């Protein structure tokens, strides 16, 4: 049986975990001292050897991303932390930054040293006031202790770190849209290539990494690549935070090796709420195709989830029981994508609009089986044809719900509306 492996969440039960005092008491900023005594390239190698893959959803190897940085461009190199956590269901980075902002700050310092950046940013979504306060306080405390600023701990290494609040736009979680937003523009994705590693922030070589990825770096430096790689699966190494939400007895954050299954996690979380059974779930946020009870034993690693027809994404396990209407759920996600589409490319801008119009009609029971083909067809014309992953994400709930729950769509048509009672799926409904 797989057990939990708290590393990033380890100190979240200490009342002062967000302070520098607590962080140092728990061994914090020792990895930084070790890192500053290493060659930067040795840190990049350690991150490569650890097998750490991006924790923001795409799963790209972090060390390899660092290795792609353009050299000798004459422009400064930047590190930008993507803390714009907004993918529906995803709720791991926000509690991490609230409870332990220093592990992110230390990760930023070590990572910047490794890649030769002297200016770093944490781009955090604007709708989380207290998290922003905690991040800023952590940065201030790090400056006071000489962990940031000039000649850090006598190493000769300089680094400035700015906490930058966004202003409400899901699309800014896309790394190039984030860079445009950080430059003071509308957050719209850029055409790639060039990738940020070649021409990113202000046209300089830039690494954009997720909060959890960067926060994992101090432990890799401290304990070593082999230690990190001893957890997880062959190609999906290490630990990750699994966020269980919805119709489970004890929702919350469970940090475990990659490759754990939903069945194992549910056992720890007390199962589906009493008297009910699992109907469908997302393995990694709303942009990952939904799974059903058939997939309870799929190892939650990048390869296995992919082979089963979805994506690991952000390990945002949104869990729904049999009281939940799939069609209503997909409609709401579709409305979300239409609302958040930035408008830059036609397939996504027009496609999400039409998906929403159709889903509204179908949810109201006005449809035929032929409409499901049209719906799939629209989604086919968005998938792979959009500027960025937002458009692709919008098609996931559509395609997967029709695949697994075609009968439920048809039931809406024959019933002339939704056959479910929404009161039963509420937390107080039971």
């Amino acid at each position, binding site marked *: 049986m797989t*057990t*939990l*492996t*708290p*590393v990033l*969440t*380890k*100190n*979240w*039960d200490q009342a002062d975990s967000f302070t520098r005092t607590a962080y140092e008491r728990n061994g914090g900023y020792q990895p930084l001292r070790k890192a500053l005594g290493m060659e930067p390239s040795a840190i990049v190698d350690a991150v490569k050897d650890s097998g750490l893959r991006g924790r923001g959803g795409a799963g790209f190897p972090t060390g390899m991303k660092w290795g792609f940085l353009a050299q000798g461009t004459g422009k*400064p190199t930047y590190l930008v932390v993507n803390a714009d*956590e*907004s993918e*529906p*269901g*995803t709720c791991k*980075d926000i509690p991490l930054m*609230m*409870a332990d902002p220093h592990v992110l700050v230390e990760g930023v310092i070590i990572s910047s040293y490794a890649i030769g950046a002297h*200016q770093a940013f944490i781009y955090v979504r*604007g*709708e*989380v*006031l*207290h998290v922003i*306060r905690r991040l*800023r*306080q952590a940065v201030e405390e790090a400056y006071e202790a000489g962990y940031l600023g000039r000649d850090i701990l006598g190493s000769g290494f300089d680094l400035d770190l*700015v906490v*930058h*609040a*966004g*202003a*409400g736009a*899901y699309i800014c979680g896309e790394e190039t849209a984030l860079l445009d937003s950080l430059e*003071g523009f*509308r*957050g719209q994705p850029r055409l790639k290539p060039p990738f940020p590693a070649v021409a990113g922030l*202000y046209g300089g070589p830039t690494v954009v990494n997720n909060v959890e990825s960067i926060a994992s770096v101090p432990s890799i430096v401290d304990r070593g690549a082999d230690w990190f790689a001893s*957890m997880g699966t062959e190609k999906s190494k290490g*630990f990750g*935070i699994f966020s269980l*939400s*919805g*119709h489970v007895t004890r*929702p*919350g954050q*469970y*940090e475990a090796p990659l490759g754990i299954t939903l069945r194992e996690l549910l056992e720890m979380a007390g199962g589906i709420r009493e008297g009910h059974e699992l109907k469908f779930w997302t393995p990694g946020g*709303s942009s990952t195709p939904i799974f059903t009870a058939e997939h309870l034993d799929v190892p939650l690693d990048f390869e296995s989830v992919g082979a089963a027809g979805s994506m690991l994404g952000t390990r*945002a396990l*949104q869990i729904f029981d049999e009281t939940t209407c799939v069609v209503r759920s997909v409609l*709401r996600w579709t409305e*979300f994508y239409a609302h*958040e589409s930035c408008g830059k490319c036609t397939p996504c801008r027009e496609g999400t609009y039409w998906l929403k119009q159709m889903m509204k009609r179908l949810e109201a029971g006005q449809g035929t089986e032929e409409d499901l083909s049209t719906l799939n067809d629209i989604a086919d014309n968005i998938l792979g044809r959009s500027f960025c992953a937002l458009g692709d994400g919008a098609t996931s709930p559509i395609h997967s719900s029709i695949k697994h729950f075609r009968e439920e769509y048809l039931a809406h048509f024959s019933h002339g509306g939704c056959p479910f009672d*929404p009161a039963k*799926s*509420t*937390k*107080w409904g039971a």
Partner: protein
Amino acid sequence: MSHFPEGSPYDVETRQRLEQDAKDIIARYPQPRSALLPLLHLVQSQDGHITQEGVQFCADMLGITPAQVVGVATFYTQYKRAPMGEYHVGVCVNTLCAVLGGDEIWESLSEHVGVGHDQATEDGKVSLERLECNAACDYAPVMMVNWEFYDNQTPESAKRLVDDLRAGRPVPPTRGADGLCSFKEASRVLAGFNDGRAHEGVQAGPESRIGVELAKEKGWEAP
């Protein structure tokens, strides 16, 4: 510039204060234009929403046109086009929260308060917003007031919360500062100015701690 309403011109003292704040913000960035989002939060902290005067101020400070500022301000949902309440109340209606009761909360709250999405009450105390996912799904259904977390809500708790806010009774967030600041004060924090309240409130809510507490109970550790 018709996307944003006319406000009142800044008097000399206000303008000087805002200019000093703006210079502080701009100095943090390698390129001035990066300060635009913080500057919009700054003028919102002055006016409670984005005004034509605020747009002009941002344009002046960065040497860009008002049209360029408007192009950006209209893109982001946190920049408001009309006065919001002293307490801006959001209800998450993305799928997971909606299914767990967010839809019912929104309907009953909107009816109770008598305003709809992005509208404020006549007394200017409260405004409502239909929110997308706010990254607290394990605490669903979630509400936000001035971007502080109110976890595990019900229609009854939501109505009580808003009644208390309108009556001036303190209602601290579930995970946040010990008491709420105003929407304008929150905007100032977003602009980049600390209010000295980071140490207040819990480090993590019960749902955030659930895994680590279970691990310690069972004696589970990373190798």
